């Protein structure tokens, strides 16, 4: 029984009388940080600092200097305060680039989720051979390196390519007349294999009793999908959306290979614009600043992903 001793510290009644001061025992139902775990976490922490925090911090610092790749300030560069930020605010390609990135990301995410989900649903009821073939093709498209995917789509969508031939317009150059649409389709094509795999696994986890119960209640296929499967898939959809967003935000290679950001500025998304500033115009510091903006945007999405994937008990 808990009682107090003379100085107010907890004391305990012993079975045969007398009191004994209770050592200040901590409550066991509260999570406490185990400082001993720092030893085990240290290698990962060192890697994180060396390979992530320091380079990103350096990039943030460079964004506020006048460093150039070649030129008078290539070696003797210095901190210039907010000069680059002022340039960013007056640059009329930057807001265009942000808008293009937004369209590209939203288009890719919507496309990837819809196509991936459709593929996963259709595969459930397809016969074995078709399932293997389609699944195989989708996964190969996903594993393909960006260079291969980019070259394939470049060849298909320019004049004389398969797109034009299939539609009977073989001399049309789809890539240069609708560049953002084509690169978004290319990105969707390369990501939907991943979405398909994730959704296929999630669909397998939907208990069949629930579907059976709905069928017994005379729910149509559409009702079963909309009211049973979709709500149960919601967590998967959310995490897939966030993951594809993060993957697409950083997607430099595909667009660079297909259009180099052109024609004009029509596919000049943030990673491509950052590269153009840093390596084509030699303006390393300004390119770093654009990269910093990308890091901030990606971090916000990253936080959203961490919150969304927290296990709710």
């Amino acid at each position, binding site marked *: 029984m808990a009682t107090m001793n003379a100085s107010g510290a907890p004391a305990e009644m012993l079975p045969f009388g007398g009191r004994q001061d209770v050592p200040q025992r901590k409550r066991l139902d509260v999570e406490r940080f185990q400082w001993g775990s720092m030893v085990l976490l240290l290698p990962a922490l060192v890697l994180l600092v060396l390979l992530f*925090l320091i380079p990103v911090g350096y990039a943030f610092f460079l964004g506020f200097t006048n460093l150039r790749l070649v030129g008078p300030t*290539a070696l003797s560069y210095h901190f210039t305060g907010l000069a680059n930020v002022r340039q960013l605010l007056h640059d*009329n390609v930057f807001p265009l680039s942000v808008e293009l990135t937004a369209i590209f990301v939203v288009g890719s995410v919507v496309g990837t989720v819809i196509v991936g989900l459709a593929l996963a649903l259709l595969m459930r009821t397809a016969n074995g051979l078709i399932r293997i073939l389609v699944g195989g093709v989708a996964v190969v498209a996903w594993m393909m390196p960006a260079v291969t995917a980019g070259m394939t789509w470049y060849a298909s969508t320019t004049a004389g390519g398969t797109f034009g031939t299939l539609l009977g317009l073989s001399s049309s150059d789809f890539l240069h007349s609708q560049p953002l649409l084509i690169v978004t389709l290319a990105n969707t094509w390369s990501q939907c294999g991943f979405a398909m795999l994730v959704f296929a696994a999630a669909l397998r986890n939907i208990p069949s009793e629930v579907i059976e119960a709905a069928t017994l209640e005379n729910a149509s296929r559409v009702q079963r999908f909309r009211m049973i499967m979709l709500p149960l898939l919601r967590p998967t959809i959310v995490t897939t959306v966030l993951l594809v967003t993060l993957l697409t935000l950083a997607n430099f290679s595909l667009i660079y290979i297909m259009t180099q950001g052109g024609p*004009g500025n029509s596919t000049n998304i943030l990673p491509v614009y950052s590269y153009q500033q840093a390596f084509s115009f030699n303006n390393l510091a300004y390119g770093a600043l654009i990269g910093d903006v990308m890091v901030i945007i990606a971090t916000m999405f990253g936080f959203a992903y961490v919150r969304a994937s927290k296990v709710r008990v």
Partner: protein
Amino acid sequence: MRMGRLTRCALAALSLAVAAGVAACSGTAHTATSPSSGNAKTIKVAFGSTYVFDTTGLTNKWWNQVAQQFEASHPGIKVQLVPIPGSYNDIVNKLSLLYRNPSTAPDVAEIPTGQIGLWASSGYLRPLNSELPSTSWWNEFPAVVQSEGTFGGKVYAVNQGENDSAIFYNKKLFAQAGISVPWTPHNWSDILAAARKIKAKLPGVIPLWFLAGSGSGANGLLQGINNFIVGTATPKIQDGNKWVVDSPGIRDSLTLLKTVVDEGLDASESQLFSPNAVTTPLALFPQGKLAIAIGSNYYPGNWTKFINAPAWPAAPQTMGVVPIPTEHGGGIASTLGGWDYAISANSGNPKAAFDLINIMENRQNSIDAANWAGWVPPNKTYWTAPAFTNFAFSQALFGQILPHATLTPSSANYSIWVQGMGNATGQIVQNPNTTVNQAINTLKSYVSNQLGPDSVETLK
């Protein structure tokens, strides 16, 4: 771990600040270190291994040849070759990164003409004024070639080989269209007239290859519209530290492009925007699909069996080559650009580095490089030598054009003007309703947006 949200945010911000602080301490101002003792036993030589010469095999053959000659005459000093694969941008970026650190900076580097000014201003290069007078070759370089490496009176780089432009036309197709050969256009109207005749008589053939768009970068302008701009009364692209974005010369050149595109005399948009557009005529001419092209001096060499890119034995009989006329006639117009040798400001053995350049500029090596890379050798006595003129048809003509050619700007921000002009010409090809005024606006607004409104100029 139970941490309040505030604590987590504070920790994240703190770690980022710490990282930035650490990085800032290590990233403060650097200056080039002073050169070492001057008698290092190895000299590093950096060069483009797949892009500059016509084939990788010939690249290796030439560089090994000069390295062996150097080592034979300089016992005890070794040549370390640093090949850089990839195209123009990859070479420039890689060299920029190598030069940042004195220990990786190559003693001798092959750098493109258009970059010399930039590199000289970064303090990377060593002036060569004291060594040049004692050479046998420097005074044989035309004035325009000598000036390409000269900034503020100091010579920072010496030419390895030059590219200039001329008009290539298919004599057989011309005969079929009823145009008499040999053909000599005296002005721009003559070029248009011939292209129109080809379009009328030979519908399946591209009349004129006139590059447009930003797909080919600076090379697209070098072998495209710049050849017309430099042939007008206002050829200037750079005026001091301002960029000319509007001038009668630029307007007339854009008008010419618009006329060519609107009348269907140019290649298709897809072909022009391809990253390989600069070399596509090499394949189209042998197939009889192209009548006229603004081409470069490397075409004839590429068609020889030796270079085989592609080999076209009938080229000398089928093709005619003629200088590009100025707008209203009376002169020759051509752009000029190539590759140069430069010595690093931090070279461990500048004397040996210059000796290597001396060997590379001798008659045999210079002519071999010109033949194997598709250049005109910069030395007057070499471009008239039979070893060069007999290598491929019309090479002698390109030597004659060389002293009349105009250098492209070598400033930091030329790449921005290039992108702006690429956007302007691309717009004309993509959208037939684009007026010349709109194209000029595209160029002007692009350059002013990137460099500020007081960096652009209109010439009257």
